[in-house]
């Protein structure tokens, strides 16, 4: 249950030179086709195993929406096909077809019926839908007085009222307030635990990396890369940063992890290391101990303005902390070719136990999108261990002073 098999999927739209040509093609089928095909998706094949969570990423126009529409059966493929086993719920357009004059409850019925449920089934699920939407008396008011967030809540609650074998989620979830976003993500995670297969489309790095086992990158209607979410996300980021005359390189880093390096290459990170209090090079650090991150940058060409930034990420690739010398108001000017610059960042390692990676960026301004000299993911990997403190949970070291009063 819960498999998606996409094989050789392609979608082309017919374009006719004039309005009359379609009529001519229909009327005179023997005279041959008069349209040209515009391909938006080509040769896409992949499989999603039962219980697996796959993230789908790509820039706008890469074909993500088309792919989802083909998978859900809204549009017909031009070539290839999609096979699915199990019940499917798609959260593509939440609140589609909501009628403004009807109450939330009536619209919930309508939305449920559009998913193929009968009125009785929806009535049975209604208490649960109401509880999850959590909009109180608004449930019985016309939807036209709703905020967009409330409409989302009702729509999401209906769409996920029953656990599907396959859940397909578009960026829909980025709407709504933070509280409901958490709530809906919790529900998706819960479904995952119970064995639901998930296909998630998002630009949101966190969402992809925290939920997915695997990621697929679409580019120009083709499947560009497939692999670990962290690796694909890095590649995707680099791909955005790269535009003209830049190439993305992949290097095998120590420990078998794939390092993504991109940029124009005027300056590169020559060395990066973590040092403890006594100046010893370390890879394992105790929670809360002072450390110095040393990054040696080599300039290969004259650089008018240089900013170095780094980001510490956890094992899922979620950012823990990032800063740069622009934010610290210490940018360097007029670097000569061949010059070496050593940066030292001293801070207490207030992170929880786990493995972390450091990504570096050498740029001319605060974003890496303008002049990207070098962007290096997984430049350094280190481990934080709890050696001296009582056990605690989480990825941050936020040790409290405890004061308790009993009366």
């Amino acid at each position, binding site marked *: 249950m819960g498999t998606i098999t996409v094989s050789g999927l392609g979608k082309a739209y017919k374009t006719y030179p004039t*309005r009359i040509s*379609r009529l001519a093609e229909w009327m005179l089928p023997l005279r041959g086709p008069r349209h040209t095909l515009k391909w938006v998706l080509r040769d896409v094949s992949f499989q999603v195993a039962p219980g697996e969570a796959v993230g789908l990423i790509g820039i706008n126009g890469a074909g993500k929406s088309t792919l989802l529409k083909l998978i859900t059966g809204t549009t017909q493929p031009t070539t290839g096909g999609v096979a699915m086993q199990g019940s499917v719920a*798609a959260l593509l357009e939440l609140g*589609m077809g909501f*009628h403004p004059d*009807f109450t939330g409850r009536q619209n919930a019925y309508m939305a449920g*019926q*559009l998913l193929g449920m*009968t009125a009785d089934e*929806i009535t049975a699920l209604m208490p649960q839908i109401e509880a999850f939407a959590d909009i109180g008396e608004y449930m019985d008011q016309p939807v036209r007085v709703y905020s967009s967030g409330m409409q989302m809540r009702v729509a999401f609650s209906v769409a996920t009222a029953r656990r599907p074998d396959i859940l397909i989620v578009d960026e829909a979830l980025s709407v709504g307030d933070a509280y409901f976003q958490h709530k809906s993500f919790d529900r998706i995670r819960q479904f995952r635990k119970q064995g639901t297969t998930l296909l998630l489309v998002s630009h949101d790095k966190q969402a992809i990396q925290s939920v997915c086992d695997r990621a697929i990158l679409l580019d120009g209607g083709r499947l560009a890369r497939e692999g670990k979410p962290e690796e694909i996300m890095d590649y995707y980021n680099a791909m955005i940063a790269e535009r003209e005359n830049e190439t993305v390189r992949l290097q095998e880093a120590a420990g078998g992890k794939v390092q993504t390096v991109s940029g124009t290459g005027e300056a590169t990170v020559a060395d990066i290391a973590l040092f403890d209090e006594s100046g010893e090079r370390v890879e394992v650090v105790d929670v809360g101990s002072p450390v110095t991150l040393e990054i040696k940058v080599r300039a290969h060409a004259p650089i008018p303005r240089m900013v170095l930034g780094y980001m510490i990420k956890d094992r899922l690739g979620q950012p823990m902390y990032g800063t740069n010398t622009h934010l610290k108001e210490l940018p360097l000017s007029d670097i000569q070719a061949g010059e070496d610059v050593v940066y030292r960042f001293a801070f207490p390692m207030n992170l929880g136990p786990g493995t972390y990676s450091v990504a570096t960026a050498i740029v001319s301004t605060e974003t890496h999108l303008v002049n990207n000299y070098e962007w290096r993911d997984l430049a350094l990997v280190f481990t934080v261990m709890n050696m001296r403190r009582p056990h605690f949970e989480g990825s941050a070291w936020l040790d409290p002073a405890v004061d308790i009063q009993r009366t």
Partner: protein
Amino acid sequence: MISPLMLRGLWAYRGFVLGSVKREFQSKYANAILGAVWSVLSPLAMILVYTVIFSEVMRTKLPGAESGFAYSIYLCAGILTWGLFAEIVARGQNMFIEQANLIKKISFPRICLPLIVVLNALVNFGIIFCLFVVFLIATGNFPGLMFFSLLPVLLVQVLLAIGLAMIAGVLNVFFRDVGQFVTIAMQFWFWLTPIVYPATILPPEVRALMGWNPMAPLIGAYQAVLVHGASPDWAAIWPVALLALLLCVFGMRLFRKRAGEMVDEL
């Protein structure tokens, strides 16, 4: 014509179909104080207008018009049933364009849409026609058992409407001219069918042409049954039934062939 797969889809989405019919009815009248009364008032007003304007002119010409209500009944028999036909065709030609958002974004059996249109039209027709029947009984003009011979006529008429609606609906997605054309054509068709006037006032050469108007025998059957209590002219209805079936088959084939392309075009 309809594949088992389509039927299964329809059955699975019966909740959606019935819910949509109910909602459309509600939404039409939800914000009006008089509510559903309006669905009766508007055809009633039309019948009143025609009666006032034409009854004096027509009464003498309507054969066998002993009853004072004869022209009103004649008019209702034609206008109410034409209304059903016209509503299915008019709503049908727009059904896919109107629901473009739903069709493009949500995967559901598209065949639900024509069914919703037909059911909606039947509900509206049912209300007004029931009132009409009450009126017939009250004025002593109910034709008795002969009334039930209207059912097959009605079936043929609905089939004819569905066939035309499917063809117009699908074509309209690709060529918007079709919608405009059908709207105009329906007006001409209304006046070219003996609904407001009796066929007898037409010159003989024009009456011969009525044989080519598939609506003429159907409307004629309603008028025969309801005004005169006479049996419908079955011989004239058979060819129309055949045409209705042919149009339905063609309409369904067109729909099935173009359904995929339709989504891309919307």
